[in-house]
């Protein structure tokens, strides 16, 4: 395996390469030898090699934007974000602008709206940064998708959110949105958020997963060039419930999504899948925070991204916290980045804080690099030419995540988009392959 971090590619990593980059998918971090002794863990309490991780042990949350101050770009949560390009969202005023909604609601699903004073809105997990707080404030209530308890939907709930490209005066005010997906106990539902068109959009999404429910949330970002999208996604996973999130970021100028998971009871399971493909000048940032505070929950994170072209930029931050009460936790997170051309930059920062030794397992891995020459050799040794082999590998790299969506038509559409993007790659067969 040679695709790991040996390429002179800029990879920001909080952990030592030797520990991260094992054969295949990377090395398990393994159980800690010295459990932390309190909840007030200093940053980097579990840090391979003692390197500061930058992520605070406790996150400040508030519904008041001013409680966060105006970010300068030096803050930990903003330091990877191009502030000039996200400024239109941060400076955005409350507006009546909306994206166009196209909805497909199967039987057993209700779409309503509640105002800001509604107890549902007041009880949502709080914003973790200024943009999320502004979004909560400016969206003035929430759109609510309700899935009745024990409902078994015959097809996915689809919400197509299309940017309109601005108003008649040529202005493009920020569109603010807050969506709540409330799934009753023992229901089974898939909800697809399908973002497209041109907009400046900041949308909060909260998924409340009832006890024993099984929920898949798919968020597709196929924005037109020039679009800016910020959003905080929260999942509150009920007792013995299963939550799966699949984030697919392909379009837009800047996309910055923060996904948080908390567990409302023991026995919950969360899987966070993501795939992103950044072309020239696109900034795609995915920040995850999985907070294990109750016993016997699992989390599994798999994010894969590819980058091509000058100024392509991706950021992945994967924070997992296992609090003292969260005995029996099992967690693993993996981020892989495939750099297809020079001039692209992928930052990848996994961070695992473990405050109890009584867990089933905890691990993380991160790898950024070029094509895996062993995979290419294997395919070529079966007669497949190098160009076709590379396409198979890259396509497979994406399909590996996309296949978790479980909605065939959507999977096919996304793979077609990815194929088209790969087709645009100049002289794929001339890309360098590293040799062990």
């Amino acid at each position: 395996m040679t695709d790991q971090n040996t390429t002179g590619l800029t990879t920001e990593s909080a952990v030592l390469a030797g520990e991260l980059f094992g054969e295949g998918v990377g090395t398990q971090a393994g159980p800690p030898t010295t459990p932390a002794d309190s909840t007030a863990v200093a940053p980097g309490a579990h840090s391979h090699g003692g390197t500061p991780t930058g992520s605070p042990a406790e996150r400040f949350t508030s519904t008041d934007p001013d409680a966060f101050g105006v970010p300068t770009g030096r803050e930990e949560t903003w330091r990877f974000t191009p502030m000039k390009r996200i400024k239109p969202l941060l400076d955005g005023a409350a507006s009546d602008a909306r994206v166009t909604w196209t909805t497909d609601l199967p039987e057993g699903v209700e779409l309503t709206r509640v105002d800001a004073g509604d107890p549902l809105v007041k009880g949502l997990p709080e914003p973790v940064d200024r943009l999320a707080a502004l979004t909560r404030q400016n969206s003035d209530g929430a759109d609510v998708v309700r899935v009745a308890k024990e409902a078994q939907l015959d097809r996915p709930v689809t919400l197509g959110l299309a940017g309109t490209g601005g108003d008649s005066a040529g202005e493009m005010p920020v569109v603010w949105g807050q969506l709540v997906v409330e799934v009753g106990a023992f229901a089974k539902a898939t909800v697809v958020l399908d973002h497209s068109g041109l907009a400046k959009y900041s949308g909060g999404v909260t998924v409340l997963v009832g006890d024993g429910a099984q929920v898949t949330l798919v968020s597709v970002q196929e924005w037109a060039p020039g679009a800016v999208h910020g959003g905080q996604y929260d999942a509150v996973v009920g007792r013995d419930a299963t939550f799966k999130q699949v984030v697919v970021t392909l379009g837009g100028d800047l996309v910055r999504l923060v996904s948080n998971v908390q567990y409302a009871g023991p026995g919950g399971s969360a899987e966070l899948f993501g795939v992103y493909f950044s072309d020239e000048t696109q900034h795609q940032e995915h920040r995850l925070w999985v907070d294990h505070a109750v016993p016997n929950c699992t989390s599994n994170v798999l994010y894969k991204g590819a980058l091509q072209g000058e100024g392509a930029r991706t950021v992945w931050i994967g924070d997992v916290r296992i609090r003292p009460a969260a005995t029996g936790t099992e967690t693993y997170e993996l981020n892989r980045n495939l750099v297809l051309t020079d001039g692209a930059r992928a930052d990848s920062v996994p961070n695992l804080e473990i405050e109890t030794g009584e867990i089933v397992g905890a691990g993380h891995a991160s790898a950024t690099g070029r094509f895996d020459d062993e995979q290419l050799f294997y395919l070529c040794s079966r007669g497949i030419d190098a160009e076709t082999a590379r396409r198979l590998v890259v396509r497979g790299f994406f399909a590996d995540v996309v296949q978790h969506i479980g909605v065939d038509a959507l999977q096919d559409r996304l793979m077609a988009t990815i194929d088209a993007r790969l087709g645009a790659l100049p002289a794929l067969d001339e890309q360098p392959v590293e040799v062990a």
Partner: protein
Amino acid sequence: MSVLEIRDLHVSVGEGDDAKEILRGVDLTVRSGETHAIMGPNGSGKSTLAYSIAGHPKYTITGGTVTLDGEDVLEMSVDERARAGLFLAMQYPVEVPGVSVSNFLRTAATAIKGEAPKLRTWVKDVKSEMELLEMNPAFAERNVNEGFSGGEKKRHEILQMRLLKPGIAILDETDSGLDVDALRIVSEGVNRSREEGQVGVLLITHYTRILRYIKPDFVHVFVNGKVVEEGGPELAEKLENEGYAAYVKGSQEVASA
């Protein structure tokens, strides 16, 4: 009829001052219909020989020739070698995430044959070969080698050999890590190809166990990067009883002389 000829092959790994010679003058000829066993202790360079013939970029050819039916194999790219009729069943097959076995097999068959195989016969061929190798049909929809057990990976390698029908098949420690049942199933797959008559087999192994199922016509003892003794099947029996100690000792004396 294929003939693979290896003459005075020298191969090293690493570059510059770190370069280390692994193969030190290998001579070997394998013809269609013949089965050659290459036996040797760990670290003798057996796998290096296999990967060098297949064209792995990690290895540098520093001398000698390899030809297939007179064509210079060393001038060919990895995929050209496969299309010329060489096949390497790997000791450690590589996982290819997101690429299904069926897609992989079809792509490979299309590349080898120069045109897409007829769908109906192809599906039937794959199915019947999988049955013979006692592979669950669900295998076809799994990602290549991902989550396969050791035995499943080796069956998958032999499945490819069966479907791609190479002129010369190199089996690199195909027996390693297999239980008795899996060893029998895999060996039977190899024997089906041998019985069909047109394949030459280069069977690389550390142990004599697999030779009870796949009878070699020739046995070559490989030590310290070259063939040190050649014979018929009786040589394998000698190795079974006496091990490699005599050969290894001899080579060390030569090295220190």
